[in-house]
């Protein structure tokens, strides 16, 4: 009932007020009635934003509520499957993830640092790259597709270990080339609608675009369960969706461009708390 009232006031507020910037402005993200996760953070130095705001703040009360209890959050069905996968032997080497990594909790903090420069491979690595290296080079198993269920379930399980920790990707040193490329892509207009990410997520966050409340397009909640397609979505699948909406040819998942963009967008959220697995419409 309390939840219903909150939802109602949110809707009414959204209808009445163009002055109130976002629905659920004062809502607090408390998960399982015990962990409070901050949904704002001061903008990092040099940021074009005045304050960092999690995408959660822009969603309706109903969608917000789904992220507030792990029993209501549909991601956890897939995370449970990933736990089974974690101990499952796969591939020619007779190994499971657990054979080498023991506890998945050992990945605490990893989400906050990715993508990062992989010195051995000499390129930027997203979490998906690390997992597939283990599968192909260490387990003798097939690589998983970037945004298929087995991969997004595993990245969600691993990201969950960092829930509440601040995003802290490195953009200097060997990562700086990718950072600059990502930044360029963020501000380049593309597609028949001729828009850049910044046109929507920097210049217009807080306003309605048709039925959608524009957020800063932060990725602290990824992988994210979306009600729209009823599955967990990788960061790069989300980028793909936004590009297609403006009738632009998306880059390939796992491409140099998209991983650079992932790094740049992550850096725009440096300081925001990891919310994976978030829920969005």
């Amino acid at each position, binding site marked *: 009932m309390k939840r219903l009232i909150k939802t109602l006031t949110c809707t009414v507020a959204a209808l009445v007020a*163009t002055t109130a910037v976002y629905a659920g402005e004062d809502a607090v993200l408390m998960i399982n009635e015990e962990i409070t996760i901050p949904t704002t953070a001061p903008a990092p130095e040099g940021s074009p934003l005045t304050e960092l705001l999690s995408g959660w703040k822009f969603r309706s009360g109903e969608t917000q509520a789904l992220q507030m209890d792990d029993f209501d959050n549909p991601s956890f069905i897939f995370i449970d499957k990933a736990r089974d996968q974690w101990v499952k032997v796969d591939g020619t080497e007779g190994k499971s993830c657990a054979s080498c990594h023991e506890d998945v909790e050992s990945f605490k903090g990893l989400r906050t640092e990715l993508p990062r420069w992989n010195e051995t491979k000499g390129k930027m690595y997203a979490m998906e790259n690390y997992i597939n290296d283990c599968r192909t080079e260490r387990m003798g198993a097939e690589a998983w597709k970037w945004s298929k269920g087995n991969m997004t379930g595993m990245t969600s399980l691993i990201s969950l270990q960092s829930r509440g920790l601040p995003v802290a990707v490195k953009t200097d040193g060997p990562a700086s080339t990718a950072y600059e490329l990502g930044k360029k892509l963020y501000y*380049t*207009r*593309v*597609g*028949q*609608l*001729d*828009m850049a990410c910044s*046109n*929507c997520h920097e*210049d*217009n966050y807080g*306003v*309605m*675009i*048709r*039925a959608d409340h*524009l957020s800063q397009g932060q990725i602290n909640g990824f992988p994210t369960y979306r009600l729209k397609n009823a599955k967990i979505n990788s960061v790069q699948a989300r980028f793909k969706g936004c*590009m*297609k909406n403006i*009738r*632009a*040819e998306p880059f390939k998942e796992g491409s140099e461009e998209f991983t650079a963009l992932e790094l740049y967008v992550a850096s725009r959220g440096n300081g925001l708390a990891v919310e994976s697995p978030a829920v969005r419409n």
Partner: protein
Amino acid sequence: MQRILLAALSSALISTAAFASEVAPDGVAFGEDGQVTASLTGVAGDPVAGKLAFVGRKLGNCLACHINDDATAESFHGEVGPPLNGVAGRWDTAQLRGIVVNSKMTFEDTIMPAFYHEGGERILEKFVGTTILTAQQVEDIVAYLQTLKEE
């Protein structure tokens, strides 16, 4: 059967006829303030068809960014651009046409898409060489916008 064929033929004829006198996307002449004085087709715009193209999500989808109190049957009006209520009183026909054809000629660096324009970076293959709206749809929308007068 015959009738269908005939209908198809005559509509094909009409569209080629319309095409012949149409201004191509790269042939549109803009005035100093981004206005376009000449009709793109020479065929008067139809405000009823214009309203349909205005609200159509795969056509103008103008409500994505604009509130329009004349279209309240459609839910969810966006707020990225200014409300279009009474817009006929703010801009003349030529300026409205210019804004719909390519608003960047009126508002520098605007987020509003150019609806009768070809070209750009990384266009999704199926849209290469096309415009968002046809020349006649632009004329229809302009005719519709002219009906949006302040009460």
